[in-house]
């Protein structure tokens, strides 16, 4: 389908596709197996300017928006959803600065991020604060011109690898969720440590670790926006980033569908390629249609975000929900089409299926997304 993207976006997509095909595909299985972080690929993405596509030109970027970021994430995910997350996770960690940071903060951090010199990470989740993000326990205590952070963030994407962390912590416990604030913490700050690397079902090339703050002192200038704005920053960040998760899901599904389609044309049973059987054809048709619908919703949401829309919780939740459920279904069907071969690690489809699962879980489980969607629908109805 032609989504009428701009010339520059076409260039971005084609370059990301070229890197995915030539550089990521050959090593995807390797990184999945070893669970190493794919630094050589991050270097390639950096040198190609892809980290800067959504960052304004005045900070060294290419001046595009969320759709540009989605196009890159989708193409990279086609080859490996785990490696793509090193890229997308940096986008998530950057958004608080991009959306709410001061001019000084932007000038200090965005140029390095745009060049891919430093990766970023977003730290919200804690052991007892998953879907219920309001019950985070990490604290930030103000002392003079410093904040002192204490607490442990869990399952942080890019932890240990990234150099710039945006962290949500409680500054005033009495105020509940209005007592949370967002901060920038640089790797290497005394009192900041990383826990062991998690062993995961999928996206195994992505680094997931605890980020531990133990009397970690940061300059007061690292506060993003104002005290008490932490949850607003977090929610706005997630509303903006969810199309990125949707794009990742679309990419993973496309990668699996490409394999299934190719395989069905070459696999011969009963004397003919299995693609000539209607049972397979109908599966392929459904996979292709669902995928295209998810892509259309993803791009539409990303465009809405880029047009400056204020309230888009419902729409970005819909995109993430639909695309990730689609990805799970399409990758499962791809394994089914490859059948016995699909279940073996010799073919990449079982990996796509493992990688797809996370998109239904992170940045808000799909159950939470449904809550958000329903709540917004009802709110809109009442308003009318």
């Amino acid at each position: 389908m032609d989504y009428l993207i701009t010339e520059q976006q076409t260039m971005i997509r084609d370059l990301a596709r070229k890197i995915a095909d030539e550089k990521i595909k050959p090593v995807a299985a390797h990184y999945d197996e070893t669970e190493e972080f794919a630094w050589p690929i991050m270097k390639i993405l950096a040198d190609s300017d892809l980290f800067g596509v959504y960052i304004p030109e005045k900070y060294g970027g290419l001046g595009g928006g969320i759709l540009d970021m989605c196009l890159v994430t989708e193409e990279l995910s086609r080859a490996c959803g785990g490696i793509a997350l090193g890229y997308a996770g940096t986008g998530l960690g950057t958004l608080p600065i991009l959306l709410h940071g001061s001019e000084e903060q932007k000038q200090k951090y965005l140029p390095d991020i745009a060049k891919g010199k430093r990766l970023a990470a977003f730290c919200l989740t804690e052991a007892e604060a998953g879907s219920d993000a309001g019950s985070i326990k990490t604290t930030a205590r103000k002392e003079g011109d410093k904040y002192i952070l204490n607490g442990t963030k869990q399952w942080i994407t890019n932890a240990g690898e990234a150099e710039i962390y945006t962290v949500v912590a409680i500054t005033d416990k009495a105020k509940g969720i209005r007592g949370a604030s967002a901060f920038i913490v640089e790797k290497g700050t005394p009192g900041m440590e990383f826990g062991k690397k998690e062993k995961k079902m999928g996206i195994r090339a992505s680094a997931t670790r605890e980020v531990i703050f133990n009397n970690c002192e940061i300059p007061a200038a690292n506060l993003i926006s104002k005290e008490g704005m932490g949850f607003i920053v977090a929610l706005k960040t997630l509303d903006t980033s969810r199309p990125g998760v949707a794009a990742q899901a679309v990419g993973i599904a496309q990668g699996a569908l490409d394999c299934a389609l190719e395989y069905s044309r070459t696999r011969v049973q009963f004397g003919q390629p299995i693609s000539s059987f209607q049972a397979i054809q109908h599966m392929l048709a459904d996979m292709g249609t669902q995928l295209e619908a998810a892509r259309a919703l993803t791009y539409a949401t990303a465009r809405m975000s880029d047009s400056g829309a204020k309230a888009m919780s419902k729409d970005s939740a819909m995109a993430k929900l639909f695309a990730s459920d689609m990805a799970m279904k399409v990758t499962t069907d791809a394994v089914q089409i490859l059948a016995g071969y699909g279940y073996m690690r010799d073919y990449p489809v079982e990996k796509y299926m493992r990688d797809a699962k996370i998109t239904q879980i992170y940045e808000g489980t799909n159950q939470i997304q449904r809550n958000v969607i329903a709540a917004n629908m009802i709110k809109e109805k009442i308003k009318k």
Partner: protein
Amino acid sequence: MNIIVCIKQVPNTTDVRIDPVTNTLIRDGVESVINPFDAYAIEEAVRIKERCGGKVTALTMGPPQAENALREAISLGCDEAILVSDRKFAGSDTWATSYTLSAAIRKIGDFDIILCGKQASDGDTAQVGPGISAHLDIPQVTYVKKIEEISDKLAKVERMTEEGYDIVQTPLPCLLTVVKEINTPRMPSLKGMMRAKSAKPLKWTADDIEAAPAALGLDGSPTRVVKIFTPQQRKGGEMMSGSTEDVARELTELLKDMVI
């Protein structure tokens, strides 16, 4: 340091197929690309620039559409690009091609090092690089797999041989042809691609490079193609089956005379 990299636009061999019925080349949809060996020359040129400063000029001789190869070279880090194009060049063999390119290089004038891929994937001659250095009467080192040292005056390089490699020192200016082992070419960058889009490669004709008309194109080429034909395609032979041991024994028997 002024670096010149000579490149050629060639059909992508991955796309080249033979029509099984007519036994001729199918060229429909065959994409034109930078000769794969020249990509290593471009990358090495850009690395020398990054190491020593200076600029990289990409030079190609070819039809007007070869401009695309030059734009790609710019997206990969070349600073300037020159297309030498003229109907008078049609039919050039390696003698006339190297003459034409050397005339263009004389017009560029100031250069310290010329890089070429070891050969082009369509012609496979490996003659144009050495031909250019002969026309310019400058030293050459072919099949370079590593530049160990480089300064304004000297380069110390490793030249690949059948048995290993030679270590050769050459004064500058010189011409090097490079092999794949020398580097891994980078991906283009978005900023480079944007620069390439708006770049305007210089276009030089036979008159611009002040070339002797008798030395150009078909007339300037000592060699002439008199016949082009498709070789007999190799046919698949016997498929062997049976247990591993049986197959191994049978094959050993079949190949007995070749291995003793």
